[in-house]
């Protein structure tokens, strides 16, 4: 029961954070709610995976993959390019804090810590990019199979 409440709480947080960013990025107004849901769901997935495996990179990858799949789905449903959904959707996963900490360690002359957080940040960013690319390829191949059969 408490786990369920915690997940719902995280979903709400991710939902509103993504909506805020969607408006900040001037997303078309009719796409904002759907984007918020995609962002919230991917944040929850990231949260679950992070708590089970304690690995940020695999969690980020799966979260970005989910955003990509939902983005491609919504793109077909609402007839808009997938970027409209993907760009605000990944914001909750994006390593903004990591980048900030890396540079903060650098200006504080703590070079070892900067190297540790910096490389982790780079891997997280790469994981997001990988997740989106894999989801794009996945949905393209699904469409290909569908077209072949019909």
């Amino acid at each position, binding site marked *: 029961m408490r786990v369920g409440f915690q997940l719902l709480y995280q979903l709400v947080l991710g939902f509103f954070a993504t909506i805020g960013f969607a408006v900040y990025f001037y997303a078309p107004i009719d796409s904002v709610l759907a984007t918020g849901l995609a962002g919230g769901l991917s944040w929850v997935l990231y949260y679950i995976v992070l708590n089970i495996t304690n690995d940020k990179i695999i969690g980020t990858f799966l979260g970005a993959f989910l955003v990509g799949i939902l983005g491609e789905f919504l793109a077909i449903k609402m007839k808009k390019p997938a970027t409209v959904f993907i760009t605000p959707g990944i914001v909750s996963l994006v390593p*903004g804090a990591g980048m900030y900490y890396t540079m903060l360690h650098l200006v504080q002359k703590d070079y070892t810590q900067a190297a540790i957080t910096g490389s982790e940040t780079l891997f997280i*960013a790469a994981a997001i990019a990988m997740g989106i690319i894999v989801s794009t390829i996945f949905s393209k191949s699904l469409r290909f199979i569908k077209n072949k059969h019909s």
Partner: protein
Amino acid sequence: MNHFTINNNDEVKKLMALAINSGETLLRNGAEAYRVEDTMERICNSRENIFNANSFVTQTGIFLTFEYENQSYVNFKRVRDTAINLEKISEVNDFSRKFVCTKISLDEGLNIISKINKIKTHTKLEKAIFGAASAAFFTLMFGGNLRDFFASYIASYFVISIMNITNEFKLTFFIDNFLGAFLASLFASISIKIGLGTNLDKIIIGSIMYLVPGVAITNAIRDTMNGDSLSGLSKGMEAILSALAIAFGVWVILAIYI
């Protein structure tokens, strides 16, 4: 008259202007390099007697060339100050799809593009309200409490409002980010001083979330993985320097505060 062919030199110039303008609109509003290249090539190739349309896009400029009656035409546009605007990307995307498969004349197309460029989407007030809300929710996501939530909301609301004014002066992205981070951490430390917030670092990270180039670094890696290495490199460089500017801005306050 068939709208799907180009008839004279005048129309060639218009087609070039149309393709370059739509590419510029896309790039200026934060589209990926491959989307810009693809859109421009599609617009040119949709007219039957245009051959060998080729484009090359980096973060800072677009090149486009095509052949018409054995003569090649080249144009190039320098693009400065990009900001993300998803509505415009979506509109240009819609337009290019329509242009390729229906009879929209070139003049009409140029009109539509300039209209898209003038779209007023949200007011600055709305931007500040929603940007501050997402900053406050990020403070919660990073583990802040309810008091930090309000501190972060107020701090980032002021920062976005001030940034909206300073954006008019067209400072470079480095100064913009430095100023934003400086103000965010200034307001955050004030909120601690007057007893509203409790965790300084959580408030600061939440409030600089819309400055931090997380999306930019991800897009840079996406571009590089797509094979657009030059665009990826310039985006990545800009992202790293923005993060540095933000860190400087925060550090100035932290050095005084601690």
